[in-house]
């Protein structure tokens, strides 16, 4: 309450605004869950929550990696410094080699000496080439020459696990330069990320500001409340104390680390959030609407790049080394005192108290900078800068250009004029494409040419181009969607037109990258052509998916972002095609294409039901669960999660235990997925047990669980498949591929056991539940039986190795037919088990 002429106190204002924001958010969530309950019987957006949880985990990982990177750069820095001084760094276990070499030299055994030296040079050269690149033969020669020139003194050993605290005075100046960069990268991430990648929210000046300013409050107070929004909405912020915990914990121990996370991490979270918002607000007030989109787009791109780049750099030691060597050459030594003070305090010896205090001071400093920006932004008042500078006359674009397609013209005008879109749509795909290209370089097979990396890069760029562009292009409608509703064409037509345009544009973009590839890799022309064909099919379905995220402005005119679960549904599986191409794994690439087409159809089915009620979600009715969409999502999630799980387990185990990893991963993921599906169906008032039986009018469900018919037919089909395998062995084309695939036959007994376990005890249950119980049944409702039989079996086949596609397709048909006829899921399960048993025994 204001007393006679004084503006309302700062804290009262801030508290009131925060409460209002909380009420607004709670109100919106309540309304959304009411709508959901009305539509689907459950109030929680489970997929959305899962997605958010995954993102939070990812952010924790990112912070932890940054902190860890800061702690561990001592080693590469030492290595670079040593190399600069003319030494070669070798692992310490090679010290014995030097003793042996010295002995051989003193004994005069020249031949053995040469042999030993060559062996040493070869083993060391391997690592050098991996870290520094270069030609292997040349490197071997270089190592040998180095030894001849300098002897054992020309080499120094790798140091590892150095804790900073003990030897801080030994660090070369380069160390502080590099550390400043690591810390700078983390700060960039914190300052520029803001509310996350701006994929679907239009940046306009907050219309409430004028209303707010009509109250006797200080402007600073009003903006302070807004400054906390990134901190509470982006998981990056509230997980950031992890960085401080890791960093200080590494230097001073876990307890101090935890203290630092609280005393430094939490204040800094809010400080960074404030600075981000202050920058954003001041730019919004100072720039015209179209330019501000570009600058804000650049800001969020910077935030994104520092996040992804940090993880990317961390992932490879050789990248560490090369970056540090580059910094060593190009950059002057940066002042040491900022980071020294931050990490050690200001005394001579390392002091945890001093460090924490300086960390807290950093937060205060950041808030002061934020305040400065807020003040700078508001200096010219709250009027948006707009309108044209005097004398410049604008020209409207004539309809002759693309005159026949007014919608295309509108979209292209938007794309050109919304500079933010251009910035993001170009920068983000390029960044991600480049990162993926480097990341997967290791997994790509050792081919002579790198055409697959080139094509993979093109595909991934194109994929992200569409993923970023679609929602932004929807957001560009904003509250002007009403104009579209006055035209004699359905919304569906408009969305399809959008999708088609972006399909063509993205294909042009990908083509721009692929065409030079034809000149770089002339021998792989036909392969590149196949990738291009795959892209055309894939991108069509991806474009359709990305425009399916349309939302209508609510009754107060705000455009609300689409629910998280829908965003995730569109994103699932989109990378499969690109990753498949990049790693020369055709199987994955084809899955990506087929999967995308199927999900696009599922999404559009739901969308068509939703569109007539876009402005009136209260009358919207969901199709009864489980739908095609649910089945497809479940299958996609499980296979992606199992794939990731396998990879993670493989990283921890030796590579020949891959079948153990696979069966473990599938088993765990399968159990988890079953539990989630159970919950989900209960939430939608569907009895989970009903998946296992399929009563149809005029047909009784089979009495018992056992089905002799199923067993017999399954075994018979297994026999046919075995004959098929024999036939393949005779065909020269498939002979080699078959030998490769059957390498399992030579594996150890333990491996074989796990393979058999997976094939007979785990896979039939999982696959029948998913592909027949969920997918086939939902498809049968939507597409009719014949199409559903073919569709679900084809989809099922795609998830197996290409060589087995034909028999697996037949198995799919058999199992689906059995399910429909028998009415119980046990029949196809038994058939599947019988089939797999026959295959395993004869394979």
């Amino acid at each position, binding site marked *: 309450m204001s007393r006679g002429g004084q503006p309302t106190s700062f804290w009262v204002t801030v508290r009131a605004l925060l409460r209002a924001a909380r009420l607004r958010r709670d109100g919106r969530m309540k309304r959304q869950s009411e709508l959901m309950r009305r539509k689907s019987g459950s109030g929680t957006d489970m997929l959305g929550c899962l997605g958010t949880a995954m993102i939070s985990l990812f952010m924790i990982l990112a912070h932890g990696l940054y902190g860890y990177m800061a702690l561990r750069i001592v080693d590469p820095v030492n290595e670079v410094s040593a190399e600069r001084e003319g030494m070669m760094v070798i692992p310490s276990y090679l010290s014995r080699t030097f003793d042996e070499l010295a002995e051989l030299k003193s004994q005069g055994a020249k031949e053995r000496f040469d042999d030993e030296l060559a062996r040493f040079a070869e083993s060391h050269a391997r690592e050098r080439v991996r870290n520094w690149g270069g030609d292997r033969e040349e490197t071997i020669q270089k190592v040998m020459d180095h030894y001849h020139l300098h002897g054992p003194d020309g080499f120094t050993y790798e140091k590892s696990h150095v804790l900073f605290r003990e030897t801080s005075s030994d660090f070369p100046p380069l160390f502080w330069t590099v550390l400043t960069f690591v810390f700078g990268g983390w700060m960039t991430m914190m300052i520029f990320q803001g509310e996350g990648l701006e994929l679907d929210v*239009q940046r306009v000046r907050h219309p409430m500001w004028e209303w707010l300013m009509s109250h006797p409050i200080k402007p600073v107070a009003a903006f302070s409340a807004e400054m906390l929004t990134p901190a509470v909405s982006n998981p990056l912020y509230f997980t950031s104390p992890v960085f401080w915990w890791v960093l200080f914990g590494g230097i001073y121990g876990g307890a101090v680390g935890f203290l630092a996370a609280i005393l430094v991490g939490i204040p800094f979270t809010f400080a960074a959030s404030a600075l981000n918002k202050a920058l954003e607000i001041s730019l919004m007030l100072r720039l015209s609407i*179209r330019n501000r989109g570009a600058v804000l787009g650049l800001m969020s791109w910077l935030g994104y790049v520092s996040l992804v780049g940090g993880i990317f750099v961390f992932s490879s030691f050789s990248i560490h080394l090369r970056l540090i060597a580059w910094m060593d050459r190009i950059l002057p030594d940066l002042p040491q005192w900022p980071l020294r003070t931050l990490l050690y305090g200001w005394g001579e010896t390392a002091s945890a108290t001093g460090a924490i205090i300086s960390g807290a001071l950093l937060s205060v400093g950041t808030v002061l900078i934020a305040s400065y920006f807020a003040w700078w932004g508001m200096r010219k008042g709250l009027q948006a800068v707009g309108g044209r500078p005097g004398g410049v006359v604008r020209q409207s674009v004539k*309809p002759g250009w693309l005159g026949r397609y007014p919608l295309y013209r509108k979209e292209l005008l938007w794309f050109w004029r919304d500079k933010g879109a251009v910035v993001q749509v170009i920068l983000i795909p390029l960044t991600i494409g480049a990162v993926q290209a480097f990341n997967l370089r290791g997994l790509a097979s050792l081919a002579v040419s790198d055409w697959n990396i080139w094509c993979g890069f093109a595909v991934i760029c194109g994929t992200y181009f569409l993923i970023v562009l679609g929602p932004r292009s929807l957001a560009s409608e904003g509250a002007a969607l009403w*104009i579209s509703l006055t035209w004699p*064409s359905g919304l569906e037509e408009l969305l399809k037109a959008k999708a088609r345009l972006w399909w063509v544009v993205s294909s042009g973009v990908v083509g721009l990258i692929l065409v030079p590839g034809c000149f770089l890799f002339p021998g792989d022309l036909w392969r590149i052509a196949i990738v291009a064909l795959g892209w055309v099919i894939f991108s069509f379905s991806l474009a359709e998916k990305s425009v399916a995220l349309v939302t209508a402005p609510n009754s107060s005119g705000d455009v609300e972002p689409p629910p998280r679960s829908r965003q995730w549904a569109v994103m699932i599986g989109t990378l499969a095609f690109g990753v498949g191409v990049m790693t020369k794994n055709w199987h994955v690439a084809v899955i990506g294409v087929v999967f995308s087409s199927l999900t696009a159809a599922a999404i559009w089915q739901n969308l068509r039901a939703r569109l007539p009620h876009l402005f009136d979600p209260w009358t919207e009715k969901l199709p009864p669960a489980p739908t095609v969409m649910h089945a497809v999502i479940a299958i996609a999630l499980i296979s992606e999660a199992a794939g990731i799980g396998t990879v993670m387990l493989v990283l921890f185990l030796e590579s020949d235990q891959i079948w153990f990893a696979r069966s473990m991963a599938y088993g765990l993921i399968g159990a988890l997925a079953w539990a989630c599906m159970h919950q989900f169906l209960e939430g939608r008032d569907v009895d989970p047990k009903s998946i296992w039986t399929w009563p149809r009018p005029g047909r009784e469900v089979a009495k018992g669980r056992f089905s002799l018919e199923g067993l017999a037919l399954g075994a018979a089909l297994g026999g046919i498949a075995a004959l098929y395998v024999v036939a393949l062995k005779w065909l020269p084309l498939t002979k080699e591929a078959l030998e490769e695939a059957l390498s399992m036959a030579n594996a150890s007994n333990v491996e074989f056991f796990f393979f058999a376990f997976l094939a007979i005890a785990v896979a039939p249950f999982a696959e029948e539940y998913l592909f027949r119980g969920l997918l086939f049944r939902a498809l049968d409702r939507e597409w009719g039986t014949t199409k559903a039989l073919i569709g679900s079996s084809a989809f099922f086949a795609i998830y197996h190795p290409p060589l087995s596609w034909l028999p697996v397709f037949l198995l799919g048909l058999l199992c689906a037919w059995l399910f429909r006829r028998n009415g119980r899921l046990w029949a196809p399960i038994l058939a599947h088990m019988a089939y797999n048993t026959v295959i395993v025994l004869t394979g």
Partner: protein
Amino acid sequence: MTDSQSTDQETALVQINGVTKRFGAKTALNDFSWSLPKGKISGLLGPNGAGKTTLFRLLMGVLKADQGTLAIDDLDCFEDRVVAKRRIGFLPDEPVFYSYLSGREVLYLSAGMHGLDPIEAMQSLLPLACRLGMDQALDDYAEEYSRGMKKKLGLLLALLHNPPLLILDEPTNGLDVESTRLFFDLMRELADAGHTIVFSTHLMDQVERLCSEVAVISKGRLARAGHLEEICGGRSLEEVFLELTRESAAS
């Protein structure tokens, strides 16, 4: 209540029968019936929150009625909404435009989407644009227009394809005196030329000056509908309106 309706049913362009619309627990329209005769100006009079905008959205096919039917020229407003759009010109209460197109480009876009030749359509619209004082501003970004100019652009959009029915949601809300007068003159001319116009308002004098048909709506219910003279019955419209809305508040 609807004494004049039976005689005009043959010439009714718009038929609204027993329409109910609920949003969750809130009932926006309750058993609303009305018919709009051809070539006349009809006014929908009611306080704020009475359900006027909801009714117009139902007519535009943006919403689907829970009960009852709405038909324009025998086309169902929801099921046949795509075809019905050819016959409707709509001006919303607060028109918002694309932030990246100029006024002229918005008109070109709409003309193209209605299947007209954009250049020709602009030519035929230009006299009206000049009359509204918009011709200079057409090349500026539509989003930067003042409120009155946005309304005028909205009106131009609505008239672009020469529709037989014009649905105007509070058309003079926020306009200055001169523009309001201009709008009134325009509406009279359009009605004389054969267009059917329905507009919503909460201002009595607008209805008295322009309309021949009136419907009074309060709290989602139709309080009274018919010819203006019959409803007023010698008294001022304001008196009748207050009486009707108090009645419906009491019931």
